[in-house]
């Protein structure tokens, strides 16, 4: 039922294609030379030690790095045949198609209802807002807990609920891709489990890219895994992140091709 691990994503439809992507902050290079084809309708996990640039790469996928001073990008990120970093691309439009969920739950200081309606309203949603809010909350497995208090502040929810609210908010703008930057790192195991279950549901409709520090989580939720590592460059003594191996999750964890991957997933470092 699974394709051979060497042909990782060739049989799949490609959603995002990273081509020789290098990202630097100021004159310090953070990540260099990433090639990766992220398949459509799957969950792709980025794992690796701290400082290897996996979050940086994730943020490059919907131009979130534009908001960081001194961040420069070389290479191409191709989404539906368009390079996201071409001059005529509108980053706001990119973020409407490629939504993002952050490490720390960041609901707006508004009601639960308005948190979800906000994105839809600014995107010119004309349909039934009540229905959209309910549908989004149901998809984020938060409807039952919040249906009686939609007018309460988003801050009144627990951390795990807030994170699911943020996911619901992202779903409400009906993006094609959802990027998640360590969405469970601030949450307890039960909330984490709920979010992981939700991701299995979500991948039927969306392409999901998740950065995680938790390798078990990568095994549980993802179809493909990219292992990033920090490498010392020979010509200088600065450290720079790079993609070591990208393949089906199963083969990354069971039969990795690279020694560094083997060491990392078996817990020998990192």
């Amino acid at each position, binding site marked *: 039922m699974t394709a051979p691990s060497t042909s990782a994503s060739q049989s799949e439809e490609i959603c995002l294609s990273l081509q020789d992507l290098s990202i630097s902050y100021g004159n310090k290079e953070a990540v260099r030379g990433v090639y990766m084809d992220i398949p459509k309708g799957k969950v792709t996990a980025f794992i690796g030690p701290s400082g290897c640039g996996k979050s940086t790469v994730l943020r490059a996928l919907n131009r979130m790095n534009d908001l960081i001073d001194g961040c420069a990008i070389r290479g191409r990120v191709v989404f539906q045949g368009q390079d996201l970093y071409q001059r005529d691309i509108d980053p706001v439009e990119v973020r409407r198609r490629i939504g*993002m969920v952050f490490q720390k739950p*960041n609901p*707006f200081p508004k009601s639960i209802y308005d948190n979800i309606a906000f994105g839809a309203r*600014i995107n010119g949603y004309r349909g039934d807002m009540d229905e959209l809010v309910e549908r989004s909350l149901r998809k984020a497995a938060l409807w039952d807990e919040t249906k009686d208090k939609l007018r309460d502040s988003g801050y009144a929810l627990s951390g795990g609920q807030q994170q699911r609210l943020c996911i619901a*908010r992202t779903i409400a703008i009906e993006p094609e891709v959802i990027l998640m930057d360590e969405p469970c790192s601030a949450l307890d195991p039960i909330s984490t489990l709920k979010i992981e279950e939700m991701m299995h549901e979500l991948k039927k409709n969306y392409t999901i890219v998740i950065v995680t520090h938790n390798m078990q989580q990568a095994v549980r939720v993802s179809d493909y895994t990219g292992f990033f590592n920090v490498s010392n460059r020979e010509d200088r003594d600065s450290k720079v992140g790079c993609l070591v191996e990208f393949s089906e999750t199963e083969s990354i964890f069971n039969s990795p091709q690279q020694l560094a991957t083997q060491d990392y997933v078996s817990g020998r470092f990192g």
Partner: protein
Amino acid sequence: MTPRTLSYRHGLSRNIWNRLLSSVAALFTALAVLPLVLVLIYVLIKGGSLINMQLLTELPPPPGLDGGGIGNAIVGTLVVSLIASLIAIPIGVGGGIYLAEYSRSGPFAQFVRFGTNVLAGVPSIICGVFIYGLIVSTRALMGQSYSAIAGGMALAVLMIPTVIKTTDEGLKLVPQELRWGAMGVGASRVITITRVTLPAALAPIATGVVLGIARAAGETAPLIFTALFSPFWSDGLLNPIASMSVLIYNYAIMPYEAQISLAWAASFVLVMMILAANLLARWLGHLSRQ
């Protein structure tokens, strides 16, 4: 060996120093609050007893006559403060938004922040002279010299630094994640600022605005050169207008009992208005912490 006692020993030198320095700190605190308490009590005694409906609604009497009130000065202070707010709030909030959201701490933003701090320290009389030179003496406003609008402009110059600074700092307190969240659901910069960041910072901004108004409303020096004074009801925004602070300045040194009483009454009303504004500001600040 018996364990050393844990009970408090008065004779220990660290305990003596502790008590001594605590007392000194308490003393200085009391001295710092003393002027405020004395001013409030004195104004309350001298002016509070004079307050009645007639005083709040009537015009001041001609010199030598009794009775009358400070109605025109109360209205005048409100009008001039309103004009000042209408000028200073858009400029100040706009400037603060530019500094916090758009400028990215470039050299220009640093210069504006520095300039704002300097402007906040400029004596109020200089603001008055500045507007006098710019508007009043040149008759730039439709050929009029002293006017309510000129007074409002002078007060606006005083208010702007406060409003810019509190807006800038209020916006900086908004967590970066909130902006990312808005951007992450496809909000443009304008929408992020108007719909997410500004509402989140509304309480500190409102507090700063109210404090700015309270400061400006009590100023005398800028108004002497600009709004001048008038013993009559306001005759349009392009003519001189009364204000409580200038009324106090003019009447407190007159040799007539009635005018001196009015000055005290005006002091009382002014202090109460400023106190109320400060309480409002505190309440607004309190809202933000909920």
